[in-house]
């Protein structure tokens, strides 16, 4: 059977034009997808059943036992951490927040190690952005800063920017100017009209220089800023101010390098400045397919996009204190529930080590690096493959992930609801 207009759940692009050929519980072929998408659908090897660590290895256990044991671990914990959420759909995230509220846990999502600094910057200065279709239909200048879409978001350029035919940009390749800013020449840099190679850690200074030039203060700029010639900076500022519609996309090269959220703040303020000359927007390149959804769900339920601590009864937010990495590194939490993510692969060593010391439960369809740190793993559906639900694209557009096959696994939302019901039953009103 051929299924059209399937949404790829892998990255924040949420491309929704895939064509899948499926037969029974197997996906035979993926059309239109990138290599990441193809791997997501085709190399989908699942953990067959819940497993529990034994003295010598692992044993399979029934779902009911795994759920009961998880509820027990959470109930008996003084400082539980619920982490992940970015590769599943909104309903799961929503149940997760309810559990955190019920047991006074800290709940955090993967923003904490990707665009958390972008959120902090936005909380200081706001976010002039738009949906990706605005960029596709209007933008004549595109800047990729500290990101490599060709590798990380392979269809970003063809669907939304460089190569996408837009209403006011019918001949995209000819009519759009592409600027890539990075510390080294990556694949994306290779197709740029203007490649800007910044010395590592120099983003803040370059952004400041551009702001100064846009404000007409080019005379104060030294000959070189973070390795970039003044002439190039002036040229880029000129391209920006002469744009009809400009769009900046930035990645972890900006958020996780020296300066962190201050870099992002500076980039946003450059965008703000450019809006006094023309139209300019800025957007983070969100990684996980539904990481933005976890920010959205957390926000409407708790008021904060990530790092929410319910230990005081109210929702408390203090990134740096209530963020997962910090709580783990301080050795503060005594139990962890990881859902739809892989902190074992992405967290600093000290944080991962603490996960291995405490009872950690992983709810995820796949065996990953976190499995090795866990006491129990409960396999579930993968949102967008064998489970339907809402995901929010990197620009905030909500899209319904489809269920294209049934592989007989329970939905992670169902597993969490059972845990929540158990906790409610045991903890009383």
């Amino acid at each position: 059977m051929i299924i059209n207009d399937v949404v790829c759940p892998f990255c924040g692009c949420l491309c929704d034009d895939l064509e899948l050929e499926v037969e029974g519980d197997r996906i035979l072929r993926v059309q239109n997808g990138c290599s990441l998408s193809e791997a997501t659908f085709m190399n989908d090897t699942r953990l067959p059943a819940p497993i529990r660590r034994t003295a010598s290895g692992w044993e399979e256990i029934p779902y009911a036992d795994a759920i009961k044991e998880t509820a027990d671990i959470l109930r008996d914990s003084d400082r539980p951490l619920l982490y992940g959420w970015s590769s599943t759909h909104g309903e799961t995230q929503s149940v997760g927040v309810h559990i955190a509220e019920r047991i006074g846990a800290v709940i955090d999502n993967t923003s904490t190690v990707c665009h958390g600094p972008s959120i902090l910057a936005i909380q200081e200065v706001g976010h002039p952005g738009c949906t990706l279709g605005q960029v596709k239909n209007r933008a004549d200048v595109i800047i990729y800063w500290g990101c490599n879409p060709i590798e990380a978001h392979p269809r970003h350029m063809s669907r939304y920017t460089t190569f996408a035919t837009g209403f006011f940009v019918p001949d995209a390749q000819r009519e759009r100017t592409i600027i890539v800013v990075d510390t080294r020449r990556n694949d994306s840099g290779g197709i740029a009209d203007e490649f800007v190679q910044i010395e590592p850690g120099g983003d803040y200074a370059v952004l400041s220089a551009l702001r100064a030039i846009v404000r007409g203060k080019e005379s104060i700029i030294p000959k070189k800023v973070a390795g970039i010639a003044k002439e190039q900076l002036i040229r880029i500022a000129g391209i920006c101010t002469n744009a009809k519609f400009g769009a900046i996309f930035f990645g972890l090269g900006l958020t996780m390098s020296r300066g962190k959220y201050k870099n992002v703040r500076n980039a946003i303020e450059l965008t703000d400045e450019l809006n006094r000359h023309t139209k300019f927007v800025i957007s983070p390149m969100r990684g996980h397919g539904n990481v933005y959804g976890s920010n959205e769900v957390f926000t409407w339920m708790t008021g904060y996009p990530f790092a929410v601590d319910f230990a005081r009864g109210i929702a408390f937010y203090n990134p740096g204190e209530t963020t997962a990495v910090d709580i783990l590194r301080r050795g503060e939490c005594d139990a962890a529930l990881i859902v739809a993510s892989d902190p074992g692969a992405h967290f600093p060593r000290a944080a991962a080590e603490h996960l291995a010391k405490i009872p950690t439960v992983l709810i995820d369809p796949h065996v990953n690096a976190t499995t090795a740190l866990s006491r129990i793993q409960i396999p579930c559906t993968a949102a967008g493959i064998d489970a339907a639900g809402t995901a929010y694209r990197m620009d905030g557009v909500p899209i319904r992930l489809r269920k294209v096959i049934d592989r007989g696994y329970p939905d992670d939302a169902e597993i969490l609801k059972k845990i929540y019901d158990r906790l409610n039953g045991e903890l009383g009103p």
Partner: protein
Amino acid sequence: MNEILVKNACVIDPIRGINGDIMDIAIRDGRIVESVSDRAEIIDAHRCLTLPGGIDSHTHVCGTKVNFGRYMSPEDMRAGRTRRHGRMHVTSGYYVPTTFGNSYRYSAMGYTTLLEGAMAPLEARHTHEEFTATPHQDMLANTLFDGNWAVMDAVREKNIPKTAAIVGWTLNAVKGYAIKLTNPGGTEAWGWGEDLTSIHEKVPHFEVTPSEIITTMIRANELLRLPHSVHLHCNNLGKPGNYQTTLDTFDLVPDLNPDRQTLYATHVQFHAYGGGTWRNICSKAEDITRSINSKPQIVMDMGQIMFCRTMTMTADGPMEFNLHCLHHNKWSNHDVELETGSGIIPVTYSKKSAVNCIMWAIGLELALLTKNPWQCLLETDNPNGAPFVKYPEVIGLLMSKRYRDEECATLHADTERRTSLFALEREMDWHDIAVMTRAGQAKALGIVNQGKGHLGAGAEADIAIYPIRTDSVDPAREYRKVVEGFQKTRFTIKRGRVVSRDGEIIVDGANATFWTNALIPEDIRVDNDPEFIRRFQEFYTVRMSNYPVQDLYLPRGRRVDTEAFS
């Protein structure tokens, strides 16, 4: 069978012409009935003021920009936090509370139905998800069409049926309730960083004017037989001298519908400014209300501001950028492809600011100078003018000249000279307030025959019982009792269940979402139009098949079918 008998209620039910009668209200299975059995639960209202559940016909509580307001404002989240308690979830926020915060606080104030003022169709799924998490109010969504490319093309072709078909398809697809135009044409211009300054200026590329968009959409709205009228946020919001644009817009509006208004003009306070600069801004409420008083085909709402810190959020992207250039605080903007824009900035309305004082006065002037309270409804464009928890204060101000005088004495000295408020003696009565906070909204939104806004047999049992004895409180003198009374009901009954008691939520919510489904003839349906489909697939970034909001996003969806084109 679930029965309740509310005894000894002092009922004001303007739609049925009841004004302060002491009576009993019988409820069975969520609806009001003539009588109930003797097994019914009894609630003694003790002759307290009993009104149909409050209805907010223009508020921003759910969806992309509201949530972004929360997202960017941890400082506000700290301001209103409450613990998990009984049936109540944790809440955060004061001027942009979390969904549960909104729902509980509205419920405590007796509000049972809310119209979300602005939903971008492309992001409708988000709005509906938040509706589900706003459990104690029935919800309706104004759907934005101000910069809709397909609509502007049809308007340029002067094709009213096609315009109607596009609107009908979209409302059905996104489960929207009504047409919203926010700065029509201006939001598309903002796609290029521009704005329109008059209703006769052409939208770049599309070659249509706001006036053409408004008049065509009014006709399309009536062709679709939608329960609500076109809901308009006029062009030039917040600019000194904009009252002329507002008056010109009002002059465009024919009287096409015998059952309700033909145009709903929202937050008119922001559109009633004279002068030409921030230095000489003045009130033109008298001119605006003169126009309203002669045009029964228009209903407006106040857009009252109150002195506090709050968040402005609107689809009017260019306006927010202009405001940002004045305030230099944080600014968010979110343009939506082929449809609309939006912007968000925090503001503080201060008595030290002459402009803010004049704005405050204008909102009250509009209400006091509009002869027919059915034509000027009470709201603050929550949270733009003030968070909705300020409504009781607005009620107090409208009912008491003394309260206004006391406030006026604390304002910037220019206020008296540049507004007429100080000279207005009118004090509204309980009936006026009942009209301006529920009955008028129900009629304007066209939901009276859905059982909203009145307490007649067959109506939905949405009832607010306030701890106010109208026979012993003199609102002109004891306005503090009025304000306090409207802050917290004794009982809020939603669809036949007591949901809130003395401000405490005591059950889980089970709201409904109303949406309109216009039955459009096959031959002009746009989903049969190859050109419409081609342009959709080519220029949107989601496939047409992934655009419609699935029914499951509305767990208690209430579809309102209309016999369009009949």
